[in-house]
């Protein structure tokens, strides 16, 4: 168990910083070095966000990461044990957390103050330092999953569900980001549209056309008979398939329409020049990695439910290994 790396007495013979026992100090230096290198890279690129790689580069990179973790996991030595251990997990989570905290305070939009833009802090979540820290965390979490998930019984199940679930969720979310397409269609009553435009102004076409029959807003009752806030937005559309078939559907907030690998969301509406609500904005989203993300989410959910029934801090079951027990447990 990795705990031996941090308990003080067992490796006195080896005293060098890297050749002796590996613990938090080495983890801090490793993570700080990696995140610092990420910053240098960011700085060299003049603060441009890292564009997430798309298919097939992303799957190749993910394959490399899996292969690298797999190779490391079959090697048994103190460095690998440390790489998959809790000290590095805590320090790399700390780095991810600190960067995320910056991103949680500084607006991650064009509203960010100039100093934050100059320091590259207006786009933390796609910045090189953040991605480097996440990759370290993924390496650590992957190693831990492969090495520690073999425990038997509840302990092994719980560990595997939570750690493998989180790994799959993070990996598919990160590596799949480059394949996510989010683009918009403007629909006007009585016309058909298939042309998509994304935030960068790039254009494309949906494999089906959408003909807007009717768009309407239903209001809550307001003061003195005037309409109150919106209760529902509804777009009644006809989906036009390339083979000539048509089908009538409706899209409302919280009820997107799924067709031909795309999910269509009603996200906004606009008024016509004469003040009529006759047009709406539909966002079309395509995310081929979603099944992987959902697999991770459902494994993690199963792990969370299992946590309600078994705990390392109860009387009859302990996640603490023999080494820790020898140190004396608190509970």
């Amino acid at each position, binding site marked *: 168990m990795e705990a031996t790396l941090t308990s003080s007495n067992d490796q006195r013979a080896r005293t060098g910083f890297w050749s002796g026992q590996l613990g938090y100090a080495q983890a801090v230096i490793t993570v700080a070095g990696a995140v610092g290198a990420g910053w240098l890279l960011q700085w060299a690129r003049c603060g441009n966000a890292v564009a997430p790689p798309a298919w097939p580069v992303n799957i190749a990179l993910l394959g490399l990461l899996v292969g690298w973790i797999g190779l490391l996991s079959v090697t048994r030595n103190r460095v690998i044990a440390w790489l998959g251990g809790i000290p590095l997990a805590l320090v790399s989570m700390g780095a991810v957390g600190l960067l*995320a905290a910056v991103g949680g305070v500084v607006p991650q939009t064009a509203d960010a103050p100039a100093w934050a833009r100059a320091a590259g802090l207006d786009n933390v979540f796609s910045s090189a330092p953040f991605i480097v820290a996440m990759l370290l965390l993924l390496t650590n979490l992957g190693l831990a999953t492969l090495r520690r998930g073999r425990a038997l019984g509840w302990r092994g199940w719980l560990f595997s569900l939570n750690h493998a679930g989180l790994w799959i969720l993070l990996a598919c979310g990160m590596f799949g980001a480059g394949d996510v397409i989010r683009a918009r269609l403007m629909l006007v009553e009585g016309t058909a549209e298939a042309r998509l435009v994304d935030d960068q102004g790039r254009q494309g076409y949906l494999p089906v056309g959408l003909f807007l029959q009717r768009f309407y807003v239903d209001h809550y009752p307001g003061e003195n008979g005037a309409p109150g806030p919106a209760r529902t937005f509804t777009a009644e559309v006809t989906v036009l398939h390339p083979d000539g078939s048509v089908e009538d559907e409706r899209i409302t907030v*919280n009820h997107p329409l799924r067709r031909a690998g795309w999910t269509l*969301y009603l*996200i906004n509406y606009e008024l016509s020049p004469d003040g009529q609500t006759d047009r709406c904005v539909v966002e079309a989203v395509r995310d081929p990695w979603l099944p992987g993300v959902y697999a991770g989410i459902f494994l993690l959910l199963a792990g969370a439910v299992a946590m309600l029934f078994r705990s390392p801090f109860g009387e009859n079951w302990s996640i603490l290994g023999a080494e820790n027990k020898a140190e004396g447990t608190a509970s």
Partner: protein
Amino acid sequence: MSSLLWFPGFAMTAGACWIAGLSLRAAGRLRGGTLIYLGGILVLAIYLALLWQHLERPPMRTLGETRLWYSLLLPAVALLLAARWAIGWPLAYGAGMAGVFLTINLMRPEAFDKVLMPALQSPWFVPHVVVYILAYAFLSASALGGVRFLLGRHDVLPACDRAVWIGLALLTMGLLFGALWAKEAWGHYWTWDPKETWAFLTWAIYLAYIHIRVQHPTAQRTAALFLLSAAIVLGVCWFGVNYLPSAASSVHTYTQP
């Protein structure tokens, strides 16, 4: 919270039940005291049910409404902890915290309306919010335990560990329900919206606590201090986000008071 549906009456009855229950327990009448304490919880539960019916939507939209749920669930969690591990102190803290939240609601009347914006009209709304508030109740119980440890009660840490474990499980569910809902409502399961970012940070810091406890079971003082830092992050996530510079771009702003 206004006097809607005689709120002051319900709140004061609940508070009186808790004070009477705690006093009886202190006088050695454990069973009777616990029952009266439970009565206080039921009084609030009835109020919430009436409010839900009156508003024709789940009363979970505003901070004031979530304070009501918190006032219900914190004493309930305390009662669970007290019954399960035969410890009395969570009851006093649960009632004390609930009293603070009810007082805030009494002093800051809130305009109630029946409006539930389209994005919130989803089957995910109730489970997402209920699981989160329950998680917050367990986690703040652990923070109070941390304070108690630092004040010299060194036997409370195991109870804190259990509260964090359950709280973290609920937090995970709330976070993931939120992601699944966001996919249906907004098109993507995660966008690093400020509220999402702080929810992630809260989850991560309690995850770190569990790992610290497993790795260093004897570092008890560190654990207690860590619980207090985690509570600060929890506080930012819960009601601090609205005051951060990043909040202007948040899609969660309907929770603003």
